[in-house]
């Protein structure tokens, strides 16, 4: 198994798309998380400005990162998940892999473990660059530097990883179902942007959809983020990724996300084990 994981890590590491997606995500996280809020902070009374800037200082690192993860980060890693599995169908490399020594379950398992490791790298890179950005803002504003507790940062990294993992696993599943990349990316983005967005928007108007919305990735992702300090008011101003509720408890959100992850992985492995490889 370790050999197969090492092989899959090598593939992901040497693939330009991995680094391009990481670069795009970090750039988005920096721009929308720090640069834009900082340059658009009001020039009015000092107290108002300081209140805006406070959200960008090192003390708010966890909430600043997690605000963008449930939607923007999720959709980007969905694309990564699609590419990792869909590419195998496009190049026909599954037949090459499945005629080696390992079983299909082991190879797909190794692929998913490698993806999980890469996502941990994504989460840590996001926290590292965000920490750097918050440090620069503290220096520019001559503000005191106080970091959140290590346990909060670890929980933040864990929550980021879990949200990323669920979206990426959805991408892997869509790629396995469609046996390719294009359709899977299309459906994934349509689901994340349109379906979840519309459902979340309808929640206020139609009470019937509330139980459905509580089950969505977006609701559970934002609920998980909210338990780690993300302001529910801030999520309502998140552009296409906006979410105004309903929020569920942190435990329920964690369990729901874990259940999604297990379900997506199990269905993917089951599909690939059962199907013929053309």
């Amino acid at each position: 198994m370790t050999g197969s994981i090492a092989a899959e890590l090598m593939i992901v590491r040497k693939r330009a798309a991995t680094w391009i997606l990481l670069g795009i995500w970090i750039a988005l996280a920096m721009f929308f998380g720090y640069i834009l809020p900082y340059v658009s902070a009001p020039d009015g009374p000092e107290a108002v400005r300081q209140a805006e800037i406070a959200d960008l200082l090192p003390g708010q690192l966890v909430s600043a990162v997690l605000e963008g993860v449930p939607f923007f980060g999720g959709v980007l890693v969905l694309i990564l998940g699609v590419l990792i599995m869909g590419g195998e169908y496009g190049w026909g490399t599954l037949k090459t892999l499945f005629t080696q020594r390992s079983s299909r379950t082991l190879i797909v398992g190794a692929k998913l473990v490698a993806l999980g490791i890469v996502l941990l790298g994504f989460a840590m890179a996001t926290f590292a660059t965000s920490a750097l950005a918050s440090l620069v803002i503290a220096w520019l504003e001559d503000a005191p530097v106080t970091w959140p507790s290590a346990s909060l940062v670890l929980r933040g990294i864990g929550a980021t990883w879990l949200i990323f993992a669920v979206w990426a696993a959805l991408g892997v599943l869509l790629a396995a179902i469609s046996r390719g990349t294009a359709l899977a990316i299309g459906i994934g983005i349509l689901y994340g942007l349109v379906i979840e967005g519309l459902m979340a928007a309808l929640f206020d108007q139609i009470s019937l959809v509330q139980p459905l919305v509580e089950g969505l990735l977006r609701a559970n992702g934002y609920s998980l983020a909210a338990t780690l300090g993300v302001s529910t008011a801030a999520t309502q101003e998140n552009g296409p990724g906006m979410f105004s509720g309903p929020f569920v408890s942190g435990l329920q959100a964690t369990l729901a996300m874990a259940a999604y992850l297990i379900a997506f992985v199990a269905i993917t492995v089951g599909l690939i084990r059962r199907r013929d490889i053309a």
Partner: protein
Amino acid sequence: MNAVRERNVNAAAPENGRDRERRAPAYDAYVDEMDGDTLVIETRGLTKRYDERTAVDHVDLRVRRGEVYGFLGPNGAGKTTTLRMLLGLVRPTAGDARVVGAPAGSPAGLAKIGAMIEAPAFYPFLSGRDNLRVLAKHAGVPEARIETVLEEVGLAARAGDRFSAYSQGMKQRLGIAAALLKDPELLILDEPTNGLDPEGMLEIRELIRSLGQGRRTVLLSSHLLGEVEQICDRVGIIRAGKLVAEGTVDELRGRDWLRISAEPLEQAQSVIRRVPGVEQVSRNGRALHVTADPSHAAEINRALVSAGIAVHELRRERPGLEAIFLDLVRDHETEVHA
């Protein structure tokens, strides 16, 4: 079609004289000790149906340890589907297959098999060497083996280039290198010379011939009948999903015959019919096709000359594999259109 050629499943061990010369003594030694336990591939009633279409229809394939087995058939005959079933990539609808002593597709079996099915499939953004590294890690093969196989297929100098930059011939070579990585007992090669120039084809042919020496078994699927004829000990021909002929190349060819061109042809035909040992005489364009032991050639010639017939040509003919193959395929086309 000569009935002897068809479905000669229980054919004896290879007797191809040219191959015997080339493959002796290791191959001869194995032939002598061969028994029922030496089957490397054994399928029983292997069948694959896609909805209404039957791609492979009750194929009973038996490939013996150490032989180079040629698997022939026109496009769409079911060759690649059969090979995929042997590797566990495609699940049979009915029947079963054991490959190197294990159920088809099981990790235990796959560990002893090297395969290249259809076009070689690798990661385009990785170099040839890195692609082999990935496979070596999955297969648990030491990395030192990578350089050995790259040398073996003549790709060592370009192994650092990206796969996407390779020519078709280089891709084929990398496919063969990947198949050799595990130093497998059984090598399954599907059209290994596709896209190669004549020199490359010759090199790969020689490589396959050398790989098939000793106890390693090679199952070679190819459209190039001359290639199969030169390399293979035994041949199986699949047509419309059915294995319709199997045996050594000599067995499939059947007996040699005599081609006689004489004047007048009709009189020559009646004279030859009376020569003892002649089994059949038929017109073949402006010549006669005589089924008889070629040792009777002198006697036939004497009879024709004595009867005042001018003999322009008397030649021993040997049907090539291509003729047999086309014969089988045309038989089928006739059946289909009848």
